[in-house]
């Protein structure tokens, strides 16, 4: 007999989504709703009257006495396993109530819910939660799950109080910000957080976030709150955070404001330890500061130049097809000053102040034009030509101007590796070599003095020869003059004769002047003037100078001069002095030994080592063995009245020309003095 509910309730009965069944004390099914049919797969007709246990295969959890619970308490709730009509197992959550009908018979009314799907969902959820949790745990970032609903309440009260500018309020009320931090509760953290913030101990990480924000980081926290309430999707900032022990470190703080989560007052925070990155930056800063210290401390004046302007000038030239800057500057000398204007000093070290005569750094900044002396642009020119060729360095000795108006001699060098130059940076150094230059100048002065002394001495030794040289033309002039007067003094003046004589006189006067000029040149004290010289021509001139001496000594002179001998660079007077000196020495040696047939040979040639050699050979007695070591020593002389300056001075002159002088004996008697001079460096 069914007890289906009356028609209205029948509609409700079948409308309910949960399975409802009613059974009697024996478990026979008395009522069966639509939802039960859908859940178990048996229609009402099939189910009514059947034993519930049998039809549905109900199985309770072990040791579960549902029946006893029903009798005692009148209700029971639990999960059972059942089978549906298709044989599939179901997990059903049952809620049972004991009822008595009108006649007092027991009835159990149960509602059942299929947990299977839910279970699946739950499982899936748990599974994804598990995955999430794994990820959460595993990430090298420190993750926090936070509850900031209390903060939300605080903000609400602010708004109610009329605060519209949150940022200003936070800024003015740091205590409020710390309170917000205290109101931000920690729901969960991952292992990385425990490691990074908790130093391995989870216990300190279960309350609020306030301890983990450094005092100086209020702004960041405040901004993150503002980002959250203004609907930003996320917020990222580098900030200073604190570990549980109070030690601080730099972290990259990221907050994710997923709308659903924010709506529930929840928040996911990530922190990445960027101490290492900071460390790297600090190391970079330290090395930069070491560089700066070096820059500062070096006993060399360093100037840092901004050279992008110069780079641009170079680019313009290259675009015009210029490949040889040297040639370009030859044609456009004004480019040098343009280049100077484009090379700008932007930093200097302390030493520069001292060297360049400045009291303040600012005096030294700006274009380099002020440091270069017109007429002494060679080193600057060389440096930009090297730069145009993209060479990494350049150095040259030069003279520069200080800002307090002095001129100084420096070793000027440029350091500009191409990468640095491309970025528009060039480093210039100046090493003060004034002392060195002064010393060298003094040395050259002394050498010039010595050479002069040598010449004077030599001229002294040649006095007679010189006198004769000069006296000849003078005598001729006087003689011609007298004769001319005679011709003109006749009753019938012989003008033709007189004219001839006058012509001869002029020629003689010129000859005398030349000889005098040569002697004066020899005797003048003057600094050496290097010019390209042909050694053969010098030999000829020296021989001219010694004409009479050779004749007087009755010496035969042979010249073997190499044709097309390359030019050397040197001072004409000084090199002539050497040649004359060597010839005079040879003549004197031969005279002293009273050699009957005196022969002199002067030869010039280009050696295998590409040097020019001039040799003076005589057939005198040769150089005694014991004299060899002293030959070139000052004041050593074998002559009775000799001053012994000749050969030392010759050596000094030749060495100043970059050459060598050597003495030796010939195989068949006599001495050989050889002078070797380098060819000028190839252009």
């Amino acid at each position, binding site marked *: 007999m069914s007890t289906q509910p009356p028609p209205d309730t029948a509609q409700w009965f079948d409308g309910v989504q949960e399975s409802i069944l009613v059974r009697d004390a024996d478990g026979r099914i008395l009522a069966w709703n639509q939802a039960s049919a859908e859940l178990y797969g048996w229609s009402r007709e099939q189910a009514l009257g059947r034993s519930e246990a049998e039809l549905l295969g109900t199985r309770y959890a072990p040791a579960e006495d549902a029946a006893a619970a029903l009798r005692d308490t009148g209700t029971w709730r639990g999960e059972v396993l059942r089978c549906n009509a298709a044989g599939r197992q179901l997990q059903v959550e049952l809620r049972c109530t004991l009822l008595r009908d009108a006649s007092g018979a027991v009835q159990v009314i149960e509602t059942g819910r299929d947990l299977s799907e839910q279970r699946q969902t739950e499982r899936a959820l748990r599974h994804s939660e598990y995955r999430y949790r794994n990820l959460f745990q595993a990430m090298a970032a420190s993750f926090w799950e936070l509850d900031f609903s209390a903060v939300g309440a605080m903000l609400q009260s602010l708004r109610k109080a009329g605060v519209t500018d949150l940022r200003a309020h936070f800024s003015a009320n740091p205590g409020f910000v710390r309170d917000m931090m205290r109101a931000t509760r920690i729901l969960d953290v991952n292992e990385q957080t425990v490691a990074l913030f908790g130093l391995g101990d989870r216990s300190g990480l279960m309350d609020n976030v306030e301890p983990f924000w450094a005092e100086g980081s209020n702004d960041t926290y405040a901004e993150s709150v503002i980002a959250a309430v203004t609907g930003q999707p996320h917020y990222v900032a580098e900030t200073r955070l604190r570990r549980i022990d109070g030690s601080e470190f730099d972290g990259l703080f990221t907050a994710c404001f997923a709308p659903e989560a924010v709506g529930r007052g929840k928040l996911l925070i990530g922190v990445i330890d960027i101490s290492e990155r900071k460390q790297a930056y600090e190391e970079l800063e330290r090395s930069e500061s070491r560089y700066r210290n070096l820059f500062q401390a070096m006993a060399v004046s360093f100037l840092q130049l901004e050279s992008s302007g110069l780079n641009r000038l170079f680019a313009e030239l290259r675009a015009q097809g210029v490949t040889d800057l040297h040639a370009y500057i030859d044609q456009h000398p004004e480019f040098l000053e343009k280049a100077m204007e484009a090379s700008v000093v932007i930093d200097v070290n302390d030493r520069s102040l001292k060297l360049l005569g400045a009291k303040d750094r600012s005096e030294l900044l700006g274009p380099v034009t002020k440091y270069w002396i017109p007429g002494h642009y060679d080193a600057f020119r060389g440096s930009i030509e090297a730069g145009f060729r993209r060479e990494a360095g350049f150095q040259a000795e030069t003279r520069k101007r200080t800002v307090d108006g002095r001129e100084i001699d420096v070793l000027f060098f440029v350091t500009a590796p191409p990468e640095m130059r491309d970025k528009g940076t060039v480093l210039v150094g100046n090493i003060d070599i004034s002392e060195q230059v002064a010393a060298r100048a003094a040395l050259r002065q002394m050498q010039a003095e010595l050479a002069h002394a040598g010449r004077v001495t030599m001229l002294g030794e040649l006095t007679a020869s010189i006198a004769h040289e000069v006296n000849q033309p*003078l005598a001729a002039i*006087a*003689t011609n003059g007298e*004769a001319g007067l005679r011709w003109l003094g006749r009753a019938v003046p012989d003008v033709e004769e007189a004219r001839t004589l006058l012509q001869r006189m002029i020629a003689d006067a010129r000859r005398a002047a030349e000889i005098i000029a040569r002697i004066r040149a020899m005797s003048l004290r003057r600094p050496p003037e290097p010019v390209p010289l042909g050694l053969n021509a010098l030999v000829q001139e020296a021989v001219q100078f010694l004409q009479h001496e050779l004749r007087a000594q009755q010496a035969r002179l042979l010249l073997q001069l190499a044709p097309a001998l390359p030019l050397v660079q040197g001072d004409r007077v000084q090199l002539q002095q050497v040649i004359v000196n060597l010839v005079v020495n040879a003549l004197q040696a031969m005279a002293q030994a009273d050699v009957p047939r005196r022969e002199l040979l002067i030869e010039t040639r280009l050696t295998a080592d590409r040097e020019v050699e001039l040799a003076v050979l005589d057939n005198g007695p040769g150089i005694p063995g014991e004299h060899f070591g002293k030959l070139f020593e000052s004041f050593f002389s074998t002559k009775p009245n000799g001053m012994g300056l000749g050969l030392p001075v010759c050596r000094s002159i030749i060495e100043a020309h970059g050459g060598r002088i050597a003495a030796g004996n010939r195989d068949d008697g006599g001495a050989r003095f050889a002078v070797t001079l380098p060819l000028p460096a190839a252009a």
Partner: protein
Amino acid sequence: MSQAAPLISIVDDDESLKLALVGLVRSFGYEGRGHASAEDFLASGDAGRCACLVTDLHMPGIGGIELLQRLRAEGNRVPAVLITARMLPGLEQRAREAGARCLLPKPFDPQTLMRCIEQVLPPLG
């Protein structure tokens, strides 16, 4: 001219002075002939013809003094004037011993030279 002018021989290796001296004596009305060396002079035969010899002392080859010595050894007693660019000590002595009438240093006053010459030669009319 009534008679041939006396020949004065000039010996000097300096071309310019040699010409000047020839010109000088000619301007005084003498005949002059120059020789660039003592050897040339000896070879020329003028040694027997000249009335006076003016010779430089220092010359390559045979010098002035040696020239005189040679002439004297041949019995040639032609009057000689020695001129020199270098006055060395003892030179005057040697010049006199060689039979030179005068020894003149260069540069000499041409008047002085002519007076020397005229001492040894009769003046011209």
